C-alpha cells in the first residue's frame, strides 16, 4: 500500500512538473506582449500655466458639459466663494480649480486646476485588478466600464488622489476621472477644458514640445516662475505639466519622488511570480518534505 502511494505520488509529481513546464513555457510571450513599458513618444499633454489662470472655472463647465454631468447655470460660475474651501475632483466634477491666497512670491493669488495627470507610468493602470484602466497611445489613461468591478484599488493606488467613485449608486456605479477627452481627441478636437480656456492658461500639444516650452518660459522670465516643471519627472513623468510662481508641491499638488509609483510593487510581483518558478519550487519543496517525513515515520514503525 505504501509503495503504491509513493508511486502515485511520483507520478502525480511528474505530471504537475510537466504541467508547470508547459505553463512557464507559454507565459513569457503573454507577459511581454502585454507590457507597454515606454510610453509613446508621440503622446500628448497639456501645459498648465497657473500664472495665467484667472480662476474663471470655464474649464469646469466645459468638462461637465462634455461628459454629461449636470453643469448648472453658467452664471453661477462667477461666484468666487467656492474658493473658500479646498475642492477635489470627484464624481460630480472631473476637474476643479482651487485658489490659494498668498501662494506665490510676487502675486497674491494662484489658481490651480486639478484633474487626472495621465501619468507616464500610471499607478491606477498597474493596480487595477482587471485591467479596466489603460494607457492609450496619445497618453490618455481611460477607464473601461465593461471590465471594472468597483474594487476602488485604483483610488488607493493613485498618488495624485484623482479617481472618484459613485458611492450613491446601487447599480452601475462608475469610476469617475478625467479621460483627457479621449473621444474628442480621436476626432481631432482639443480637450474641452483647453478649448474653453479664455486666457490660454492651458496649452495642448506633444508632451516633448510642452516640456521644452515650459523651460523656455522659465528662462525668459526667471523672476516670474519657480524653476520647476511639475510633472516633468514626478512619479516618472506625467502628461499634464504645471508652471507656477511658487513650488506647487508645497500645497496645491502632492510632493512626490521621481520613481514611477508602480515600480516597487511590480518588481515584488515579478520576483514572486517570475514565470511561476517560486510557487512551483515551493510546491516541490513541500511535496519533498511531505514524502520524506512520511518515509522516516514508516521506517520508525518497521
Amino acid at each position, binding site marked *: 500500500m505504501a509503495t503504491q502511494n509513493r508511486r502515485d505520488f511520483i507520478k502525480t509529481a511528474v505530471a504537475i512538473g510537466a504541467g508547470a513546464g508547459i505553463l512557464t513555457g507559454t507565459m513569457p510571450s503573454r507577459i511581454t506582449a502585454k507590457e507597454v513599458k515606454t510610453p509613446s513618444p508621440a503622446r500628448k499633454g497639456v501645459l498648465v500655466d497657473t500664472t495665467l489662470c484667472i480662476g474663471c472655472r470655464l474649464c469646469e463647465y466645459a468638462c461637465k458639459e462634455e461628459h454629461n454631468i449636470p453643469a448648472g447655470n453658467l452664471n453661477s460660475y462667477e461666484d468666487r466663494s467656492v474658493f473658500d474651501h479646498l475642492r477635489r475632483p470627484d464624481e460630480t466634477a472631473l476637474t476643479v480649480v482651487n485658489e490659494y491666497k498668498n501662494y506665490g512670491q510676487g502675486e497674491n493669488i494662484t489658481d490651480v486646476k486639478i484633474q487626472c495627470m495621465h501619468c507616464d507610468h500610471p499607478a491606477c493602470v498597474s493596480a487595477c485588478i482587471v485591467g479596466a484602466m489603460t494607457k492609450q497611445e496619445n497618453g490618455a489613461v481611460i477607464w473601461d466600464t465593461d471590465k471594472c468591478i468597483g474594487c476602488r484599488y485604483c483610488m488607493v493606488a493613485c498618488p495624485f*488622489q484623482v479617481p472618484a467613485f459613485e458611492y450613491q449608486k446601487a447599480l452601475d456605479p462608475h469610476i469617475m476621472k478625467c479621460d483627457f477627452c479621449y473621444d474628442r481627441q480621436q476626432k481631432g478636437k482639443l480637450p474641452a477644458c483647453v478649448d474653453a480656456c479664455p486666457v490660454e492658461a492651458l496649452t495642448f500639444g506633444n508632451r516633448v514640445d510642452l516640456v521644452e516650452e515650459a523651460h523656455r518660459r522659465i528662462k525668459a522670465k526667471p523672476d516670474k516662475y519657480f524653476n520647476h516643471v511639475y510633472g516633468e519627472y514626478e512619479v516618472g513623468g506625467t502628461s499634464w505639466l504645471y508652471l507656477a510662481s511658487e513650488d506647487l508641491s508645497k500645497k496645491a499638488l502632492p510632493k512626490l519622488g521621481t520613481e514611477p509609483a508602480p515600480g516597487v510593487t511590480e518588481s515584488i510581483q515579478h520576483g514572486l511570480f517570475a514565470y511561476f518558478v517560486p510557487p512551483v519550487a515551493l510546491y516541490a519543496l513541500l511535496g519533498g518534505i511531505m514524502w520524506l517525513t512520511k518515509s522516516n515515520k514508516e521506517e520508525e514503525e518497521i
Partner: protein
Amino acid sequence: MRQYTEPAPVKIKYFTPGVIVVCLVALNGFFFLMGRFIFGLGAVTNLNNQYPWGLWIGIDVAAGVALAAGGFTTAALGHIFHKDKYEEITRPALLTAMLGYTFVAFGVFTDIGRWYYIWHPLIFWNHTSPLFEVGICVMTYLTVLYIEFLPIVTKKFIGHVNLPGVLSKLNRTVDKLLRALDRGLDKTMFIFIIAGVVLSCLHQSSLGTLMVIAGSKMHPLWETPVLPLLFLLSAIAVGFPMVIMESITASHSFGLKPEKETLSGLANFIGPLLGIYLAFKIGDMAIRNTFRYLTEFNLQSVMFTIEIVVGFIVPFRMFMSKAIRESITGMYIASLLVIFGVFLNRFNNFIVAYKPPYILKQYFPSFGEVSVTLGFIAMEILLYRLFVKYFPIISQPKTGVTPSAKFEIKGATK
C-alpha cells in the same frame, strides 16, 4: 492519549441564550447588508473619495484572511511535516479556515461596487496587480478548502444515504458515487494539501504588497517594501494562537476538557515565530530609520505602539515562558493578545496608516459598516456550531460505538 480520542459530532443543544444573542447580531448585519445592495455603498458606509477602503476591506478581508491562517499552518504541521500528534486539531482548524475564507469572499462581494462583475478577474487578467493575484489565490484556495473538507462530508453520508420520496430509488447510486468520490479524494488529497499551503503563502504575502503601491500616502511606521514578508510572517505567527483560542473556547462552550498537551505543544512554536516576525519588523525599522516617527504624538504613533507592544512584544515574552505555555489560562490570554496584534496590524495597515494628501472628510466606520462586519462574524460562529453539531470535527474521548472516522484528512497520511 491520542488513541483514545476521535472526532465526533458534539452533542449539544443548538440554541442557548448566548446563541440567540449571536443570532440577533447576525440578523442586524443582514439588515444592513440588504441596505447596501438595495441602496448602494454610499447609503450604508462612510466611505468617500479620500478613503476608498474602510472597515470591510481592513477587517472582513485583510484581517479575515490573516486570522484564517490556522488552516494552512496546521495543515503544514500535521500533514506535511507529519507531526501526528497535532492531527486532531487540523479538522477544527480546517473548518474555521473554510468558514473564514467563505466570509472573506462574502466581504469582497459586499465591498466591491460592481459586485455583479465579481467573476471578471477570472477572464480579465492584470498580472501587474497584486490585487488580481490575491483574488485568484483566494478563489483557488477556497476551492481547495472545500475539497479538503469534502471527505468529512462524504464520510458522514456513505452508507446512510436516505433520500426522501421518489428520490429514494437513487439511494444506491448516490452512495456509489460518494464512495467513488471518497476513494478518488483519498488518493489525491496530498496534492490539494500542498497546494493549499502554497496558495496561502502566496496570497498572505501579496495582501501585504497591496499597500506598497500607495507608498506616498502611507505612514512610514508601516510602509516598507518588505510588507509582503511581514504579512506572511505575521500570518504564520497568528495561525497557532487562533487554533489555541478556538480550541479552548470550543472546549469551554461544549463542556469538554481542553487537549492541554497538544495545545502546549503548539504554543512551543509561537514564541520563535513571533520572534522572527519582530526581528524583521524591528530590523526593517532600524534600517529605514523610522523609529523617529514614534517621538511624534498622533493617532498613528499611538496605534503603532499599542499594536507592537500589546499585540506582539508582550505575547512574545509570554510564550517564551514555560509556565505560561503549560497553563490553559496563560496560553489563552497570550493567544488572544497575538490575535489582537495581528488584527490591529491589518486594521492599521489598511486604514490608520492610509493618509491621502487631501482630506476633505475624515473616515470613521459607520454603524452600518460595523453591523455588517459583526454580522458576518456572528454568522460564522453560528455555522461553526452547526457544523460541529452534525459532523465529526472535534476530537472527543472515545465512547462506545463510533463511526469509522479517522483523525487525518484522508489520504494525507496513511
